[in-house]
């Protein structure tokens, strides 16, 4: 099976976010970065599929030069080779621009399966995977918990639905899946893996000139604390009654 995994480098979850002066993005010079968590699970799933069914795992990332960090990490965990669509603008681009640059890079690869994380920890559009599928003309399924491959009919996948519901869906190959976080145990990159990664191919691709994005962040800000804490006084019984009433009538939370 030839599997492409699309991965994104994002700022670490612990990073103390500060907005840049133009208020259009965060200040990320000298930030710490990591592999987008759902993408890590997508990569792990791809590696397991390769172990089970043979084939090749290719990672692809669209981002600035520093994205090489997560590419190397993916190669160290066991991906066979990589494609880096390098562009600074892609760090904070919209989903369509990112999907189009990824599509341009992997279109000629004759893949069986494309895996992406269901969304990114930074912008959280949840679109790139699906738009990529549409651009490549592949069927897709999202928020996948389990993948069964190896049948001629294609791939049978378990979709997560709301409220504890699930659904199995079969898709013909080639197909694209967006993977849910936490569906497997992430393997460690071993020392051997890290050293071997240095010899693996990272093909650099410049993205085609993209049209101006049709959506952009006009202002990035910390959510205003519109809350004014209402302290409810009185004895326990009255306060409890008062609280329940307010939750029912004012906050409509019950």
């Amino acid at each position, binding site marked *: 099976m030839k599997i492409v995994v699309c991965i994104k480098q994002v700022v670490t979850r612990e990073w103390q976010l500060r907005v840049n002066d133009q208020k259009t993005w*965060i200040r990320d010079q000298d930030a710490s970065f990591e592999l987008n968590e759902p993408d890590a699970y997508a990569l792990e799933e791809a590696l397991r599929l390769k172990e089970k069914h043979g084939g090749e795992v290719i990672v692809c990332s669209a981002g600035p030069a520093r994205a090489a960090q997560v590419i190397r990490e993916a190669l160290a965990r066991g991906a066979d080779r990589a494609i880096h669509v390098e562009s600074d603008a892609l760090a904070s681009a919209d989903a369509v621009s990112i999907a189009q640059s990824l599509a341009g890079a992997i279109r000629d690869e004759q893949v069986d399966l494309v895996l992406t994380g*269901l969304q990114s920890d930074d912008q959280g559009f949840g679109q790139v995977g699906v738009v990529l599928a549409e651009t490549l003309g592949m069927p897709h399924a999202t*928020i996948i918990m389990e993948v069964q491959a190896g049948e001629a009919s294609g791939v049978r996948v378990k979709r997560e639905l*709301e409220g504890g519901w699930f659904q199995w869906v079969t898709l013909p190959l080639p197909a694209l899946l967006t993977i849910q976080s936490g569906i497997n145990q992430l393997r460690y990159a071993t020392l051997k893996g890290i050293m071997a990664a240095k010899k693996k191919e990272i093909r650099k691709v410049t993205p085609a000139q993209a049209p101006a994005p049709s959506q952009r962040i006009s202002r990035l800000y910390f959510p205003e604390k519109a809350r004014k804490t209402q*302290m409810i006084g009185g004895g326990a019984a009255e306060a*409890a009654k008062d609280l329940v009433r307010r*939750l029912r009538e004012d906050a409509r939370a019950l």
Partner: protein
Amino acid sequence: MILVVAEHRDGALNRASLETIAAAQHAGGPLKIVVLGSGMETVVGQLAAADAAEILIVDDPALEPYTADGFVLALEQVIRAENPERVFLPHTYQTRDFAPALAARVQRPLVTDCIAVRDGGYARPVFQGKLHADVAVDGPHLATFQIGAFRADAMKSGASPAPARKAAIAIDASRIRQKPEAPFKEARQAVDLSQAERIVAVGRGIKSQEHLAIAQQLAQAMGAELAASRPICDAGWLPMDRQIGSSGQTVAPKLYVALGISGAIQHLVGMKGARTIVAINKDAEAPIFEVADYGIAGDLFEVVPAMIAELHKSTA
């Protein structure tokens, strides 16, 4: 004109559709609602109550059950025929499955997970809700709305039922590549608190494992999930998957009730996105009160039973 795509399953309308209609009414202008599937009389009837210009029915056996390909094929035709300025959808699992493909197919931008309508665009959370972004969008577009961002009861009803019309849509079933099986329910291994609408969380103030019962009763009375701050899970009183905070889950439910939780920043980062936060703690200076909407500085062992009694009373 704003076109709202309603969602239903097994003959029941998803409440989020009403929220989306409320969002469209808030945004202003003519409003149409489209519903897809097969045999949707009840659902159409519910939708017709809204103050809208028209309900479009796309009735085709190929659309039942839901598939991404089917919905994209159908809605693509609806959008071309109706040419709405904006298409609003609820940000449900189903919408997330097809909306980006639809937007790419009709070559219009899609803004997902919106929490408010702004001039020229929308506001949406980024960086897992730590920041908000005002997004400006050009031209005709689609937008999905976060569940709960608008209230279903804020939807305005029409003076008379909205007229319903069958849309002239042809779907080539052979172009649908997904083959779905019947959905099923499964007890998840780990509790996904991020899906809970209401959460009752306990902290050190609960004092001992036996006292969890009182929190459990409150949760039941409220229809809430039980969760905890870190020390409770570290002590083994509740499993790790019930932990809220930087080393547990991040949640943004409609209601979060913090019992005996001091509000250390490690906990706050996991829950301060909740719509309504209630804190009950003996210490009036506890940091939790800084993020709470309602606070009671008192003994939770007295307040909580009184709350349970009050809750049962009203539902009786």
